[in-house]
């Protein structure tokens, strides 16, 4: 990758007599690729918890503790419990229980041993990944602030100062430099936070605790600034070729405030290489690749490439409604069968008609018949009878003439 593709970090000039680039104003350095590596708090946490076990000193109880008696169990039959008891007599100690972890003066359960596995092995690549992540996190102001460093007045992150700082000899100038570049509030915070540790650590040679201040990383070996800066409370110094994860991510938390010198930051490229180029100092090591190159999901989703093939949003989602009985609910019935309305109407009308005509018929029957109607009905009956006879045409047959009463 060309250096032009990487953003430029401006080198902060130092005040007064140290300023050897008075004519040159502000120089810039290309951001090293390490700062663009993926930040993996999980890896840093894992590596940190394991690495921090490596400087432990073993502890154990005395291997003789609790066994410096010739105790023996009295056995059964003496109305006492069966644990081994101290032999002999003439003293309180005689007959007391011994050896067991429950006994007074007995040995503890599982006496601690010095051959406990104190140190942890971590894969080299994981260790490097963690350091690389921690360096990358140190260049992000929000992470650094989240870790608690007071970087509000720092002009730029990552903070790079000119190499003239490496020849600082006096602590007083060191403090002046820190003030000039805006790193003093952080050192001040560390100084103010000095307190006595709560807990038993007090009496175990860990009496004082304080916050961590800035970490100064220098490039040239044997630089004088080590001696100048190391006595300032909270401030730590490190050579860029020997960066310690325990210093870059104290407590396993990413984002230590790091102040780089110009030569240090220029060396970073050769120590860690880039995403394609192998490192020069670490054999065959390439910076780790991230899972997603562009992690800005919002930008990706709203990009034209995605939006052009996306389907329109369905705003009206049809949900299943309660089923209503069409045989009871007319409107639901009409939705299914529009003819139902006319059918029902016709049925109702027909019913009304039937009721009406039945009523009429009954009324007529129940009403007494008038004389004219009676006469008319009788005459009609007679006429029909006559037609019936003539229709049947039985007059040819002798048998029928006798009982039909045909008048021919």
């Amino acid at each position, binding site marked *: 990758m060309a250096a032009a593709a990487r953003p430029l970090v401006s080198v902060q000039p130092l005040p007064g007599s140290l300023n050897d680039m008075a004519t040159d104003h502000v120089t810039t350095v290309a951001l090293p690729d390490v700062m663009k590596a993926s930040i993996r708090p999980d890896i840093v946490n894992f590596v940190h918890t394991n690495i921090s076990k490596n400087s432990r000193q073993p502890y154990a109880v005395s291997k003789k503790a609790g066994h410096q008696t010739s105790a023996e169990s009295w056995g059964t039959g003496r109305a006492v419990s069966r644990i081994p008891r101290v032999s002999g007599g003439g003293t309180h100690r005689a007959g007391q229980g011994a050896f067991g972890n429950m006994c007074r003066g007995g040995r503890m359960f599982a006496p601690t041993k010095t051959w406990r596995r104190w140190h942890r092995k971590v894969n080299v690549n994981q260790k490097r990944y963690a350091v690389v992540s921690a360096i990358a996190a140190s260049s992000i102001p929000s992470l650094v602030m989240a870790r608690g460093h007071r970087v509000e007045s720092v002009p730029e992150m990552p903070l790079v100062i000119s190499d003239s700082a490496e020849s600082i000899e006096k602590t007083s100038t060191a403090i002046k430099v820190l003030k000039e570049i805006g790193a003093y509030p952080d050192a001040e915070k560390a100084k103010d936070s000095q307190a006595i540790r709560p807990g038993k650590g007090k009496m175990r040679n860990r009496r004082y605790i304080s916050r961590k201040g800035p970490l100064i990383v220098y490039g040239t070996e044997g630089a004088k600034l080590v001696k100048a800066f190391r006595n300032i409370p909270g401030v730590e110094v490190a050579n860029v070729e020997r960066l310690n994860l325990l210093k870059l991510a104290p407590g396993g938390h990413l984002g230590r405030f790091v102040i780089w010198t110009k030569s240090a930051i220029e060396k970073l490229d050769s120590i860690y290489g880039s995403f394609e180029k192998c490192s020069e100092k670490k054999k065959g090591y390439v910076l780790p690749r991230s899972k997603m190159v562009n992690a800005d999901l919002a930008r990706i989703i709203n990009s034209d490439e995605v939006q052009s093939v996306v389907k*329109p949003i369905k705003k009206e989602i049809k949900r299943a409604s309660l089923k209503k009985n069409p045989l009871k609910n007319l409107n639901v019935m009409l939705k299914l069968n529009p003819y139902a309305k006319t059918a029902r109407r016709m049925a109702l009308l027909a019913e009304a008609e039937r009721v009406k005509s039945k009523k009429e018929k009954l009324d007529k029957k129940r009403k007494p018949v008038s004389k004219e109607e009676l006469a008319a009905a009788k005459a009609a009956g007679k006429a029909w009878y006559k037609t019936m006879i003539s229709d049947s045409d039985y007059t040819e047959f002798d048998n029928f003439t006798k009982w039909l009463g045909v008048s021919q």
Partner: protein
Amino acid sequence: MGEEATKVAVPESVLKKQKREEEWALAKKQELSATKKKNAENRKLIFNRAKQYAKEYQEQEMELVQLKREARLKGGFYVDPEAKLLFIIRIRGINAMHPKTRSILQLLRLRQIFNGVFLKVNKATVNMLHRVEPYVTFGYPNLKSVRELIYKRGFGKLNQQRIPLTDNSIIEQGLGKHGIICVEDLIHEIMTVGPHFKEANNFLWPFQLKAPLGGLKKKRNHYVEGGDAGNRKCLQLKQNLTPTKFGGNVITSLLECVFSLS
């Protein structure tokens, strides 16, 4: 959004998105108006079909009555054609069944007690019914039963899912390719076992009926023995029980009085 007049530059992607959304809105509007028109036409068609079916059913009944009267007049008898459609209801539960009869009931889609299905009458189905007689009761439904079953308890099978028949569009989706687009069409197809009876019947999910109110007579016995299993044919001659209101079409009354339907 920015206009061309002001100095605010609108990103190109935003412009493209706007254009796309306009196109979508237009397409949607057109689609909406098209479906509206189609629905209106469909409605008319459904109305006419329903009217035609109503006339057809009435005609059939009248014809039957007329033929019977004519035959009686001539001194002969009118023999009704054998029924084409029957409705089966599973009477018994699922435990302790012979595997072969179990398979037959599964084929008939009667997997649960008080499940009901319509069935075409032919040699194959009649033989199947004979083998599962002790587990089912069946009879020949009339128009009223078929209508009420499909309206009240009708569910269709769409996409392997049991969807209630709340709208004609559901039926059109399932059976549109056979020309059945509304409930009345479906009822007609079932009632007069039409050419697409198989598809129409299969579209109908097996009816999940309620247990009969008032109870069954006696599950373990056959209908002729005074129980419930088997064919519920009207047995005027053999009936020496109290004359029940189970006259006429027995399956109708079964469904009304025994299974809660209307």
